[in-house]
């Protein structure tokens, strides 16, 4: 174990965090290729050596699925990437995805001891490095050494509704235990927000597809174009003899602003815009048939990951000017730090302390002008963020021919309304037992955004894992 030595030597020394190579901003705004290019083996080794292998690793507490972080990093240092990958897969069925999209600064890296004085270990980048290395080969074989991954428990079957990260985690976990899982997805592609929401330049769709292929190899059966509550109901599934049902349909109901002019042509919900571009691959139009309209002067309302994705997408589709219009200040923006930095590098303008009050169109119904009102910050509200207050009489008209609304989503009632006896909270999200993920209907579980409201990939996966464990416990004892 001589390779282990450098870890010890470097203990306490302030080696800087290894930078991530990325496409230059001026180049990447002209394409949809991934912005960050990934570590080379040398970079990964250097970065892995920064981890001091804490006895009581704080980082693990910060990870919602409690990856054995020092464990997988140690294997990188030892040069055993195969083992490292196995450690990741013990608790995380989508490491290549999480390494890219987790808000690490508030999760694992936010808790890393190295961050107390200097910079935290780049856990997410290392996770991505290991997962990407192994993605190249058959995941099933990597895990078990054989092509046929799992033995089936005759007669046991579980259904998942929706194919986002929460359901995929349930499917991955249970199928690795040899339980048959059927996943029913409304859209024609699998992956949920990973496919239709998060853009190609941040999460290449090939990665999501590969992860899903690995699950198919493990025996999971996927059914696309099946709408829960329409094509199939929870009761139908129970009647068909499924031992348990997991609902992971996400929080896909787009919120609008309720300002005049919102239905003008050129005004999109971020969901529509991103679905057209990602699911419909409209960025390659006319090679594909789904069109996405591109404006010259684009305003994006909101400042989370969704807003950043929409803004950067519009820039890539040729907009001259893209503005993030936000009621609060930059400090309050909820987006991942890296996304905010990337957006600014790409020339996205931040119009903080402004709120849209009206959208004005021409006689044909096309958006032409945006009226915003100046805001100022008041006292912190219950969320701890300063609440914005409108400044009387301070309005401003901005030329704007496209607006994208990214101010959050709510619970989509399509599934929940068609399930009698399913208990919902006052916002329409499903109420579950926090320890098991079980809903008010016995053996029907739920997790992810449809329980918590819009959250993160890894928290949806954490919820999937919790439910899957409980299902496995009940079915296998």
């Amino acid at each position, binding site marked *: 174990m001589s390779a282990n030595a450098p870890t010890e030597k470097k203990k306490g020394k302030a080696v800087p965090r290894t930078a991530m190579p990325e496409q230059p901003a001026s180049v990447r705004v002209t394409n949809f290729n991934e912005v960050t290019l990934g570590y080379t083996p040398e970079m990964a080794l250097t970065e892995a050596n920064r981890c001091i292998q804490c006895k009581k690793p704080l980082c693990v507490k910060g990870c919602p699925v409690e990856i054995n972080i020092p464990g997988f990093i140690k294997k990188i240092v030892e040069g055993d990437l195969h083992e490292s990958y196995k450690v990741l897969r013990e608790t995380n069925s989508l490491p290549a995805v999480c390494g890219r999209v987790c808000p690490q600064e508030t999760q694992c890296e936010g808790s890393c001891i190295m961050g107390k004085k200097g910079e935290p270990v780049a856990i997410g980048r290392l996770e991505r490095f290991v997962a990407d290395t192994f993605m190249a080969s058959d995941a099933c074989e990597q895990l078990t050494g054989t092509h046929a991954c799992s033995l089936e428990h005759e007669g046991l079957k579980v259904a998942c509704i929706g194919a986002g990260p929460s359901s995929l985690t349930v499917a991955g976990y249970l199928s690795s235990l040899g339980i048959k899982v059927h996943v029913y997805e*409304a859209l024609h592609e699998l992956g949920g927000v990973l496919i239709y929401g998060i853009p190609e330049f941040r999460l290449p769709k090939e990665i999501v597809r590969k992860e899903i292929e690995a699950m198919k190899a493990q025996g999971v059966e996927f059914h696309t174009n099946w709408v829960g509550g329409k094509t199939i109901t929870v009761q139908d599934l129970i009647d068909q003899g499924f031992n348990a049902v997991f609902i992971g349909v996400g929080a896909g*109901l787009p919120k609008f602003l309720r300002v005049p002019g919102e*239905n003008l042509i050129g005004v999109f919900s971020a969901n529509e815009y991103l679905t057209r571009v990602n699911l419909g691959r409209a960025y390659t139009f006319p090679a594909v048939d789904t069109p996405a309209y591109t404006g010259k002067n684009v305003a994006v309302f909101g400042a989370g990951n969704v807003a950043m994705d929409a803004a950067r997408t519009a820039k890539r589709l040729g907009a001259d000017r893209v503005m993030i219009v936000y009621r609060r200040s930059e400090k309050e923006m909820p987006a991942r730090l890296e996304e905010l930095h990337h957006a600014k590098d790409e020339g996205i303008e931040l119009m903080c302390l402004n709120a849209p009050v009206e959208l004005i169109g021409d006689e044909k119904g096309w958006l032409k002008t945006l009226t915003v009102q100046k805001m100022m910050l008041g006292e912190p509200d219950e969320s701890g963020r300063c609440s914005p207050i409108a400044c009387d009489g301070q309005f401003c008209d901005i030329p704007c021919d496209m607006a994208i609304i990214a101010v959050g989503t709510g619970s989509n009632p399509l599934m929940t309304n068609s399930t009698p006896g399913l208990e919902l909270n006052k916002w329409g999200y499903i109420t579950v037992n926090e320890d098991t993920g079980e809903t008010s209907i016995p053996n029907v579980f739920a997790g992810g955004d449809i329980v918590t409201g819009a959250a993160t990939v890894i928290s949806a996966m954490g919820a999937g894992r919790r439910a899957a464990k409980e299902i496995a416990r009940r079915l296998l004892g």
Partner: protein
Amino acid sequence: MPSRILKKRSLIPGQTSELVLDAPHIAAKAKPGNFVILRVSENGERIPLTIADTDKKAGTITIVYLVLGKTTAQLETLKEGDDILDLCGPLGKDTDIHKYDGPVICVGGGTGIAAMHHIAKGHHMAGNHVIAIIGARTKDLLLFEKELKRFCPEVLVSTDDGSYGHKGLVTEILEARLKADPTIGEVVAVGPVPMMAAVARTTKPFGVKTVVSLNSIMVDGIGMCGACRVSVGGKTQFACVDGPEFDGQLVDFKELSSRLSAFKAMEQISYEEFKKSHVCKCSH
């Protein structure tokens, strides 16, 4: 999941066809008023089409389409035995069907006649006396007269050029009927936006409940994108999940027409490219 085309019938050569699709899981659930979203090819767009009929025993649904652009033109190239790549449904709210003492009038224009057929059938099954009023530019463009006659005691026809039935608009027949019969329970209209708007204007003075089926642009069809939003009674509604049927008196038809033109320029590019690359066998 791909769906096999079991039968194809050309209704208006090169323009409108009827497909019977093998889709037992959709047929089992489909009710009048529902639609499907389909995709013809890997690079294709998702488009909504109304379920014009179902046969639950055979496990089939029927769709009828008008060739309007790239996707419908591509659909028209498919033959019996071919598969439709993606077929998703049934979507949308079911038609709200009650038993009325008086007749129910179902008005259909153009391809909307086929879509209206399933609703009319639903009213018939509920025991209503259904009067169908159908219209087209000319006799050759008229659809589903025979199918409607199977269960509608009256099928009234108008053509713009007078080549068949009443010369003029469906709304003229409708108005005469509303004047003559004060017991009409409900009017349903499916067709081009100007026709549905005209039907709503016609019924307004009579105070008869008027249902229209809106065809706004859709992407997912399950309430996740808001592309299909329409203003109804001043409130924004999603046609795919809150509709597609709404109270005709409350719909902002002007906004609907305008929103339908949002992608005109790009749709034309798609269609032109398709026509260039595809020698159309149907145009002669």
